[in-house]
């Protein structure tokens, strides 16, 4: 963990909205010189606060109309079964994220599909056949808002 001040957080607030904004333009917004902004961004990257950038796409416009969150419980919990489950689930292209959680389920998966029949195909052929997968609960996403957090 590194110490960040108000200026670092202002820079982060700008970059989470537009990662391509130049340090010159950020400097103009915040009343700082371009090199000063550049140095701060460098430090945030080097210390791992900024992990990189991501392309934001509208999945519905790209024909992926369905997003489902799956809670998965493992049927058998040996070290071997956990590892083979994690490896196999992470390799499925329709699975966008895999989180190991503590609570009602062991894993939380985010799955995209073109439509409900396509989701059913992914569920039956890919998820249900995973090694060690037990009970699965599905919740279909209706709306999603992402916030920028306490910056």
């Amino acid at each position, binding site marked *: 963990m590194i110490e960040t001040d108000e200026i670092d957080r202002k820079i982060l607030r700008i970059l*989470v909205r537009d990662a391509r904004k130049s340090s010159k333009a950020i400097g103009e917004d915040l009343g700082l010189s371009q090199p000063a902004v550049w140095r701060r961004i460098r430090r945030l990257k080097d210390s791992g606060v900024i992990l990189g950038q*991501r392309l934001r796409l509208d999945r519905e416009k790209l024909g992926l109309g369905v997003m489902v969150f799956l809670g998965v419980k493992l049927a058998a919990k040996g070290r071997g079964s956990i590892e083979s489950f994690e490896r196999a689930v992470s390799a499925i*292209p329709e699975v966008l994220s895999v989180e*190991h959680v503590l609570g009602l389920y062991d894993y939380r998966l985010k799955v*995209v599909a073109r439509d409900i029949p396509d989701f059913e195909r992914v569920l039956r052929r890919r998820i249900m056949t995973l090694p060690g997968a037990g009970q699965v609960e599905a919740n279909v996403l*209706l709306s*999603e808002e992402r*916030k920028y957090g306490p910056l």
Partner: protein
Amino acid sequence: MLDDVDRRILRQFQAAPEMSVADLAERCSLTTASCWRRLEKLESSGAILGHEAVVDWQALGFGVEVSLRITLDKTQSSAFDDFLAKARDVPEVLEVQTFLGRVDVRLLVIARDMGHYQDVYRSQILSLPHIADIEALMHIARLKSDEVLPI
């Protein structure tokens, strides 16, 4: 609609969002000018929404991440709207999602440590309107989070 060239561009660009248009064009076997034109079109159609910096909240000192799965008291017709409007105002809430399934709403909450989480939970989450039930899943590890869409 997307054609194969658009798909190729989006696949390559998702894999390396920091790439320049010239590099992207080369990887897709296109001229820089035609790649640029296609990107323009993808942006103006809203398929590409932008670039965002990915922030590691742990590196910023937010070590606790909890998924709260909330069931609302739906006997009141305004339950969803009231709840969402208030949940949006909690700075520690990173994601607000609504579902069709066993869970109505999910909030992703971050906190500095368990003490801070306890504080956010008691003073800001429990006071949100129309909550019938809450289940918590504590995040232990993220095994896959590239969020790359299978295009």
